[in-house]
Structure formats: C-alpha cells, structure tokens
C-alpha cells in the first residue's frame, strides 16, 4: 500500500497551486477553474484516507463534492455571463466597485 503521506503532499501542492491561481489570475473563468483545482485537492485527501482506513463514507463525500462543485460552476458561469452583459468585461481588476 502506498504511504498516505504521498497523497497528503500531493493534495497540498494541488491546493497551493489552486490558491495561487485564485490570487494571481485576472480572468474570472480561470479563477473558477483554480477553485475547482482546490476542491480536487480536498477530494484526493478524502479518497486516500477512505482507502487507508477502509471506510467508504469518504468516497461518498467525494461524490457529493463533485456534484455540488458542478452546480457551483454552473451558477458561477451564469453570474459571469450576466456580469459580462452588464459591464462588458470579466477582468477582475476592473470589477472592484464593491469596496470601502
């Protein structure tokens, strides 16, 4: 059996990559994709420990996470679409009206 530390390191790296993507990217669609990467990192942890402990519930949670992530992306894209219709852009640098 593969040592779970490998999975933990891998998923941590995925999480950091996703976070970097969220922070650095200007395009809202790429930010959404980065969020998906972060969710995948969490999912890998779930699956890994589910196998390690031989408990199925972790895998069930992954199914739920995937489903909800799909829904979330659908809503996110819808928001971006209407945002684009109104403002003509989805560059996050230009969408900073909601502030102090």
């Amino acid at each position, binding site marked *: 059996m593969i040592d779970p530390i490998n999975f933990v390191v891998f998923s941590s790296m995925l999480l950091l990559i996703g976070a970097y993507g969220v922070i*650095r990217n200007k395009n809202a669609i790429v930010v959404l994709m980065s969020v998906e990467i972060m969710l995948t990192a969490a999912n890998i942890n779930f699956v890994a420990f589910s196998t390690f402990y031989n408990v199925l519930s972790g895998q069930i949670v992954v199914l739920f996470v995937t489903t909800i992530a799909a829904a979330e992306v659908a809503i996110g894209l819808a928001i971006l679409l209407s945002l684009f219709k109104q403002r003509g852009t989805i560059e996050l640098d230009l969408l900073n009206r909601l502030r102090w």
Partner: protein
Amino acid sequence: MSSKDNKSDSDIAAVVLASMFFALLLLYICTEQFSSDFVNVAWMIPVFPIISFGLILLFGMYDPRRGGSFALVGVGLSSVFSMAVVYEVLFQDSLHGGFIESTRTWFGGETYSFEFGTYIDSLAAILLLVVGFVSYLVVLFSTSYMHEEGDRQVRYFGEICLFVGVMLGLVIANSFLLMFIFWELVGVCSYLLIGFWYEKPSAASAAKKAFLVTRVGDVFLLLGLIILFNTFGTLRYSELFSDPELLAANATEVKWATLCLFGGAVGKSAQFPLHVWLPDAMEGPTTVSALIHAATMVKAGVFLVARAYPLIVHSPDTAIYIAVTGGVTAFIAASMAMVMNDIKRVLAYSTISQLGYMFLALGTGAWAVWHAAEEGLEIHVQGYTAGLFHLMNHAFFKALLFLGAGAVIHSVHTQDMREMGGLRKSMPITSLTMGLGVLSIAGVPFFSGFWSKDEILEAVHHNAEAEGIFGILWWLALLTAAMTAFYMTRLWMMTFSGPDNRKVSEMKPAKDHEETGNWELSQKEVKIHAHEAPLVMTIPLMLLAFMAVFSGFLLFIGDGFGSMVYFGHHESTEGLIQWGIIDHILSSYLTYLSVVVGLTGVTLGYLFYKRSSDGNTILSTSFISDNIVLGPLHTFLSNRLYMAKLFDWFGMRTWDTFAQACDWFDRNIVDGLVNATASITQFFSNKVRKLNSGFTGHYASLTVGGLGAIVLITRVIMPIMGWSI
C-alpha cells in the same frame, strides 16, 4: 315636550323593563341551577358591564341609541345581581359579619400562586349597593343627556360600561393584587371619560392631570403592596386578615404598608394635597362627574382604607394620619367651595370635603379600635360604620346633585351660577329634587346626611377625651358642617331662586364706536330660557331624591345599620348593636349642636344668596371685595389656595433645576461617552476599512495568508514554545 321625546321615553322604558326582566330570570336560573345563594354568583356582577363594553365596541353603531341600550342592559344586569347580593348580605345577614370567598388559581409557581376570585362581606355589599344603584341611574340619565353627541355616544357608553365593570370588580376582588389591577383600570377609564371632549385643550389637560396626580398615589399603593407581600408572603384578604397576632408582631411593617396604602387612597379620593385633579375633572360630561363622585372613582380610595381596616387598627399612627388628612381636607375644600361660581366646581369641592369626612370617620374609628384594645375598653361608637354610612348617603345625594346640575346645564347651557337664577318655575322637578339633595348634604334633621354626619361628629368627639388632636379635628368638622350647609344653600339659591328675568349690565359698543372705539355700560333685560328635562332624566333624579331623603332611616331598620356594617366581632361588640338607636341620638347634646350648626349654615346661605326681585343676590360681589377681611380671603379661596401656583413654583424651583442638571449631565457626560466611543471607533475603522479594496485577489491572498498564519502559530510556534491550546 314633543312627541319625539315621549317616544324615546317609552323606547327606553321598554329597554329598561326588558333588561330587568331578563336579569331577574337569569338570577333565578343561576341560583336555582347552581346553588341557593346569590353570593355565589357575585363573580358575574363585573362581567356583565365588561361584556357590554365589548359589544358596544363591536356593534354600538347599529344601535339606535348608539350603545345606550347595551349599556342599560349590561349595567342593569349587574345592578340586579348587586341588589340580590346586597339583600342577602345586609338584610338577611347571611354571613353573620364574616365573609365568603371563592377563588381560582390563575397561574402558580413553586412559592406563590396568583389567585383571583371574589370576597364578599358587608363592606363589599355596601359598595355594591352604591355602585349598582347609582351607576344604573347615571346610565339611564346619560341616554338622554348625551343625546346631542351623536355617534360619539358609542365611545361614551363603552367607556362608562368598562368604568362601572372594573369598579364592581375592584369592590369584590379577593386580594390586594387583583384590586390593584382594577384600581389601575378605574384610573384609565376616568382618564378616558374626563377627556371625552379631547379636542378641547382644557379637557385633554384635565384628563392628563387626573391620571398623573392619581398615579402619584398609585406608586405609594404599589409600594404598600410590596411591603405587605414581603412581610406576609400573600396579598389575599382572607390570609392577611386571619392572624391578628402576626399583624401585631410586625407593627413597623404594617405601619409603613398602611401609610403607603393610604397614599394611594389620597390620590384616588382627591385628598389634600393631591386634591387638585378633581375640580379640573369637571371638564368631562356632567354624568361622568356624577359617576366619578358618587359611585366609581373617588369611592375606591375610601373602600381601600375600609378594606385595609384589619391592618390599620394595628397602627395608631396611620389612623391618626388618616383622620387628620380627612379633617383638614374636609375643611379647606369646604372653604373653597364657598367662593366658586361654577356649579360643578362647587359640587366637586363639596365631594372632596365629604370624602374628607369619610376618611376622618375611618381614621377615628381605627384609632378608637386600637385604643380600646390597648386599654381593654369597650368600643362605644364606630367610626368605621359612620364612615361607610356617610359613603352610602353621600353617593345618593351627590349623584342626585350632579345629575340635577347636569339637567340644569343641559337646559341653560352654562355652568356659571351667576348667569342662572329663577329656574325654580321652569324646572320644578329638578329644583325640588336638588333642594332635597341640598338639605340632605347640609345636615338638616331627618335627611340622610344628617344621620351620618352626626355619627361621624360623635365618633370624633368620643375620641377627643383620649387624644387631644381629635378635639381639634372635631372643631374642624363642626365648622365644615356649617360651611357645607352654607355653600350648598348658596348653590341652590343662586341657581333656582328669584325671578327668571332680570337686568344685567353689559358692555356694548357705543354709538360712536366706529370712530372713537368707545364702549358704554348699558342695562339689558335678560330672560333665562330653561325647560324641564325629559322624563328619562327626571326619573333618576326622583329615585335618587327618595334615597337621599330616606337612606338615613336605614339606621332604624331591623337592628340598625350598625348591625349590618361594622368592624370586629359580634360577641365583642355588644354596645355596637345599639349604634344609631334613636333615643341615643336624641339624648346626646352633640346632636343638637350639629342641628344648630347645620341650620345656621342654611339660614346664612338663604339670607345672603337669596335672589331678590331684580334677580341679584343680597350679598353683592362688591360687598365682599370691598371688605378688608373678606376681600383678600375671597381672592385667596377663589384662587384655590394658590395650590396650583405653589405646585408650579415648587416644580420650577426644585424639579426643574434638578431636571436641568440631569439634562446637562445627559448631554455632556452620558452623550459624551457615547460620542467618544463612536468617534474612536470611527477613527480606527477609517484606517482598517482600506483593506476592503474590491480586488478578489486581495481577499483570496488574505484568506490564504491567514490560514497560513494559523497553521504556523498552532503547529510550529506553539509546540516550540511549549504552549498547548
């Protein structure tokens, strides 16, 4: 009298008879179905008017009398039930001087459960007699008197019903707490009714004044109840009064509690110095004044003191304080009544004065009971009985006088007695019945006021041998009796005597007024237009006049009034049963003294205020104002002893200064603290809010950075330093 009036008369007669029949039927069914005792259905008495209050609010507009019929039926039902209880308790003596209590638990806890129910004894019965009888006649009178008000009668009758209902509830409540609830409701109703014409600023402010002044007393009452509850753990009459030894053992608490209770009575019954609201309360409709003065509002204070009697007899200080307050109030109110020109104000001051008599009697009686217990003497005369006897008589003649005054005002559309006179011819029934009321309150022999006033004077005089202050009070009371006879005769003479037309001088614009603006004095012949009130209004007057003349003879029915209403036990009060027996009254020189005093007052009033053939009184205004002694005295009295000014001055000097200090403190210190907190917060948040930049990346990096910081601290720094979470 037009045919329309006749029609409305028979209309009302039908409602009255129907409600009476219905009431008797209901009473029969109740007593046959559930028990043979009327007392057991006493809880229904306040319920009827309160139900009709609700019905009037909902359906009053559909009633041709605008709620009057509902009020007649509701109050009529409770009157019949009251009379049944009165008959059983007073005349059948079914309770043998004891009481009947029925009680239910409303809500309960571990240590205390709030109970409500009825407590019927002779005191409650005498109040039921007064309230039931008088309030019904007042409602009957109102159906005609308030006719001009149109749709606003709905509000009037609704409030009257609630007023009567809560007063009856107050009378038969079985604990001080329940009584206090009704007490406050009575205050609210009086506020509403005094301010009935709320669009008049004077009426609105009079209502406010009545409410606020009585509230001062209510605070004391609540304080007294708190003291009682803390000491004895209950407010139910039957539990409080059952253990005299316990009461005697807690003399200090009882003293303060009874003083506070009396404070409540001072406010409600308009005793000095809280009497200021009652004359202003004349702003309400006259029928409301009649109800307040004769049955509902001010009698509540007397009732409270009489109810707390088992407590008061353990506190001689309170008893003396009550007697002194009563005596002083009786005197100063009578002195003010002598100079008032507004017919209703004369009656208002007369009420204050007569209430003072009642308190004098009650205080005197309580002191006598205490003194007799200390010295082991037998109680000779009971101030308690005398006070309640006067309460009953006063209810009848004062309701009569107020309703009569209402009929007069209704007819001549003025309240100033100087503009009246000569109404005797045009209003024969009103003048005759009011005359009987005047003779009764003046203490002319064989009228009801004579008997009770005489007994009060005798009770006070009896105490004077043991305690000097009662001697002074006796002189005050005697003087008051003379003044009462004087001002009541003055009232009747100024209103009814003399010719009905007379010359009055008035200022008219002179012929050259247009050019010069001059005015000239001219004589004008004035005919006073008046007409007798309709039958609906005179029948209550006649009934009340009958009671005002004959209720005094209750002394001699059966064993006498003293055997119906008394304080103490049958066994220990052998002498009491003799109370009021005629040979005892006739053999006392005090009786003759009070007869002389009363007749002197009547004679002086007649001589000074008889209107001569030109329609003016013999004692002219200029005679008084030119006199070196009477002039200033008259000014002093007609300014109501400058009490209002004194209160204002006192308020401005003390309370206003204090309020301004509070205002400064509030504006600078309290507000300063709040503002400082706000501005400090604002200063820092102005710095911090720049973080909210609007860039998604910034938020995300702050989140990640924060998470990193938490991980760093909890997983790296804390283990190294050896801290644990």
